[in-house]
């Protein structure tokens, strides 16, 4: 009977360079969610507004009597606003457990004993959520812009609205960054993803409700910055060169968004670390 060598042989192949461990975390996260039918269903639903808009653009381009529904620059801003409910659901579904589940499984102590920094870990997790959020905001909006060009058969619309590319990109990335950072910070505060999801929903609805009350009391919208969603809406209007919907100056909204991202970073810095145990 042959006796097999039980010892180790050193790996002589190439290894991924240092600093790219975040990509491993991201890839694992993306694979996990792409493997879930419920999530694929959610993604599919998130693209339904895209289908509707595509039909709109097609009809406007091919039927003169439908010219009144021809897309304008504002159409793309509206499209991104329509995606907000999907942004919410994707954020809760994907983000709530991203760190909370690792905490519950004690996985952080294993991860952080590997060649993976805390920053890379957070970046990897954030990239998972941001990827999915951009898949329901930036990606369909950009494809919609290309659809418009192809159905119109000319670059006239694009040439006169060239700012749409950076506007769509900037708004999508700002939204994805803010939402992802906030959700990850909340996720790092608990071991229970359901609790995190409820907390996130509570904060969103509470801040909206608070603004509603303040608006009713003061009779103006200057305090729109208390609502997380309103700050993004305000920035979106500014980026798309549209009249601002609230009286809050857009730099104030930008400041709130930046402050929220920084605060989330501080929470993550505090919470994502090896478990402190006296053993």
């Amino acid at each position, binding site marked *: 009977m042959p006796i097999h060598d*039980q*010892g*180790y042989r*050193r*790996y002589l*192949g190439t*290894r*991924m*360079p*240092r600093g*790219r*461990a975040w990509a*491993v*975390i991201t890839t*694992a996260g993306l694979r996990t969610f792409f493997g879930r039918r419920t999530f694929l269903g959610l993604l599919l639903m998130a693209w339904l507004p895209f289908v509707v808009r595509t039909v709109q653009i097609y009809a406007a381009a091919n039927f003169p009597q439908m010219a009144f529904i021809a897309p304008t620059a504002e159409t793309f801003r509206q499209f991104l606003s329509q995606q907000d409910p999907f942004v919410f659901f994707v954020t809760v579904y994907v983000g709530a457990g991203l760190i909370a*589940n690792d905490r519950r*499984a*004690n*996985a952080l*102590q*294993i*991860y*952080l*004993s*590997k*060649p*993976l*920094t805390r920053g890379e870990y957070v970046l990897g997790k954030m990239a998972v959520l941001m990827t999915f959020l951009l898949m329901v905001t930036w990606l369909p909006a950009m494809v919609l812009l290309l659809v418009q060009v192809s159905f119109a058969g000319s670059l006239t619309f694009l040439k006169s609205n060239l700012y749409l590319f950076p506007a769509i990109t900037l708004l999508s990335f700002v939204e994805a960054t803010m939402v992802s950072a906030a959700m990850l910070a909340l996720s790092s505060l608990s071991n229970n993803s359901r609790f995190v999801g409820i907390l996130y929903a509570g904060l969103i609805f509470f801040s909206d409700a608070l603004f509603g009350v303040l608006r009713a009391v003061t009779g103006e919208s200057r305090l729109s910055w208390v609502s997380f969603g309103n700050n993004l809406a305000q920035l979106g209007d500014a980026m798309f060169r549209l009249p601002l919907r609230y009286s809050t100056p857009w730099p104030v909204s930008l400041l709130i968004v930046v402050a929220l991202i920084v605060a989330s970073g501080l929470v993550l810095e505090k919470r994502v*670390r*090896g*478990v*402190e*145990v*006296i*053993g």
Partner: protein
Amino acid sequence: MTAESVVHAEHLSKWYGQVIGLNDVTLSVPPGITGLLGPNGAGKSTFMKILTGQLKPSQGTITVLGEPIWGNPALYARIGFCPEQDAFYERMTGLEWVTALVRLNGFDDAEAGRLAGRALELVELTGAADKKIGAYSKGMRQRVKMAQALVHDPELIVLDEPLSGMDPIVRRKTIRMIRDWGRQGKSILVSSHILYEIESMTANILLINQGRILAEGDVHQIRDLIDEHPHTVYIKAEQTRSLAREFLAYDDVLSLKFEEGAVVVETGRPDLFYARLTALAASGELGVIHEVTSPDDNLQAVFEYLVKA
């Protein structure tokens, strides 16, 4: 620090607010297998988390494999860590979990899968590799954690209470496995609060209690250290009262008590006492001596003695 030491700590301390986890620890861990012994709360896990780079020392320095460990993730690739607590997703299979973790060391999917399979084979979990971890027994969970610690072929393996919860047969296999890794040239730091477990793996131990290193070195050196202190001998004999009378005449006998069919003696000079006892048994003057044992003869008693001290 000796040129050979794999871990070297100088005046290492760690506080958790008002609670001290490690208190001015200075030590060197040589290559090979080293046992870290201490009761629960002694500071073993704190020390292991510091030396695997997960905790920053409050004070002092620590180098691992010749380099500072804190904020040095490149060094983590040369270390394998098996934590005491379960730390995995129960819905994943053992193979999936180990594969996912080894990818963090920079291996591609194919190589990661191969290495994970190999590591699971080494811990004798090949048969359960495709089962969900949630269905694993405690012993299997311990072994899959060990597999992830050694899968990337580290130079130093840090095992925090690896035998915890294992049944006797698996425990024996695991001890053999750890000794084999030591023979293959790996340095292993293994913690336990049960001394005979460590004794079966290595003679080189570190005793830790209340955040301080009580003793370090070869088991026999530690024995020499405690030989200066009272030593208990349990003697099961026919004529315990006659024996007791004889012992009371010895200067080195510090105390004496009776148990069922036996007399228990505490001596300040164990070597002299054993020499006299051997002579007494050989003469047969005071009847037959059935059994002579000493709780101090196993490491558990050594440890308990040092901790009490």
